[in-house]
């Protein structure tokens, strides 16, 4: 109960400059972790590679469909180290980032405004839900008619799909703001504007981050699909489909894995920045 005591005990009070860490208490009490625990996260991937390698080695899968894992990983590494794979990786990443930036620049403010005006949200709720439920890839032909077969097209359709997710999450974040925090601000004499900028916007941050994280994944999915089917000459989607058509399987698997690397890295990046920015989340 040392943390609960308001009476200062020398040594318990930590200097203000030092970040707070509850782990300091638990570390000494918690049972010592087996070093084995640290290996656990790698078990799955190692197992997968093993199964993959063995199935190729014993000819369970035709070599034309599945190259040996070593060759694939080597192709991935050398490709990302500066080969043509890196160029396509960069192009896809840039398109995804563009789509994401457009989606969030419009989606977050719009979602927050809609969320703080429930009548406004109710009147567009059906549209948002309908198009959110429509697979964005189904809209690709429509976007081809509007934007032509261009780079803008791929970014636009990805931005559209991502935008709906962002609006939805930000709006609900505001609508589900803790009522008591709003009341606390009101009782202190906060105007509607102050309640909005000092409470609602902050309350919506965590759901907004959930939205942004799903949105960037959605943007990546749509960009890859668009690159496959909207006459592209660059990007991972284009690379995968080209490699498949000429049966360069190693190249194809390397491109697929690099798309996975990108999606995973973006996800982790958002989780880390959410933890940094929405530092109070879950506490």
């Amino acid at each position: 109960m040392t943390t609960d005591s308001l009476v200062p005990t020398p040594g318990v009070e930590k200097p203000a400059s030092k970040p707070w860490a509850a782990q300091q208490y638990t570390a000494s009490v918690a049972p010592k972790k087996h070093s084995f625990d640290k290996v656990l996260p790698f078990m799955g991937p190692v197992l997968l590679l093993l199964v993959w390698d063995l199935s190729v080695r014993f000819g369970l899968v035709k070599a034309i469909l599945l190259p040996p894992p070593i060759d694939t990983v080597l192709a991935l590494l050398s490709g990302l180290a500066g080969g043509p794979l890196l160029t396509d990786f960069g192009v896809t990443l840039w398109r995804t980032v563009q789509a994401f930036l457009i989606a969030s620049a419009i989606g977050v403010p719009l979602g927050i405004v809609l969320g703080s005006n429930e009548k406004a949200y109710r009147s567009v709720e059906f549209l948002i839900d309908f198009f959110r439920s429509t697979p964005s890839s189904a809209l690709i032909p429509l976007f081809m008619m509007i934007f032509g077969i261009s780079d803008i097209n791929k970014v636009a359709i990805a931005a559209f799909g991502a935008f709906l997710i962002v609006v939805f999450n930000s709006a609900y974040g505001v609508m589900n703001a803790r009522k008591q925090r709003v009341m606390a601000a009101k009782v202190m004499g906060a105007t509607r504007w102050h309640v909005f900028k000092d409470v609602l916007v902050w309350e919506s941050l965590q759901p907004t981050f959930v939205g942004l994280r799903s949105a960037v994944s959605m943007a990546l999915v749509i960009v890859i699909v668009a690159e496959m089917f909207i006459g592209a000459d660059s990007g991972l989607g284009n690379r995968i489909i080209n490699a498949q058509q000429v049966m360069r399987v190693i190249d194809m698997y390397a491109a697929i894995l690099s798309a996975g690397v990108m999606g995973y890295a973006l996800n982790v990046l958002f989780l880390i920045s959410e933890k940094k920015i929405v530092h109070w989340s879950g506490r």
Partner: protein
Amino acid sequence: MTEVLNAAVFAEVPMPPFQPGPAGTHITIRSLTKYFAGWPLYEDFNLDIPKNKIVSVFGPNGCGKSTLINMIAGLVPIDSGQILFDGKSLKDTKIGYVFQNYREALFPWMRTIDNIAYPLKLEGKSKAEVDRRMAELVASFDVKFDLKRYPYELSGGQQQTASIMRALAPKPEVLFLDEPFSALDFEMTLFIREKLQEVFMQTSTTMLLVSHDLEEAVYLADQVLLLTKRPTTVAEILDYKDARPRTVETLSEASFISTKKRSLEIFQREVRR
């Protein structure tokens, strides 16, 4: 056809003439009516709350103790009636409010010190003024924890202390406390109870305290307001005049015991009614 057919019929119900409370009254509640889901919770309810006193509100479950102070504080709308503070309306009155659930009352995105200073910033006070008031509060609360931390880094008792400091920062005319100790452990309850008494002795701010602990309600109170079951009326108002600071010894004083006993009798009578 300029004549209006079927003009609205007004029943001329004159507002009853306003009756001010006795000398030393702070808050006057006149013909307050509040319905909940078609049932009357308060009907033609009248009450005078004295100035510079602590009034504890106590009553059966569901009689609307919290609703009463929330209506006075403007957090719950009233159906009809009038609530005045020294003759002024709520919007001309500075109030402070302490919630039971401190976790959802403080703003976790602000450091504790900024939380406490927030009502002052809303008032548009300069940084120097805010700093001066903060120093005053820290001194009078004898704060021993680091206010630069975020609320979630503090213990429950520390967070509730910060909530009370925030409520008192703008020097409110009335402080509302809705079961401020219910979410705290015993040690913290004792500590904050004493702090509250100290602050009251320094500032004699009018306080309205909702409590579900009779001992605590009497211990802190100058007046114990006992309510009936709904539709809620005043069952009785008991004065409790023991000198402050009240201490552990107070709990065994004859006057304390008799006030507590009397409160309990009234409470039981109302619950069984």
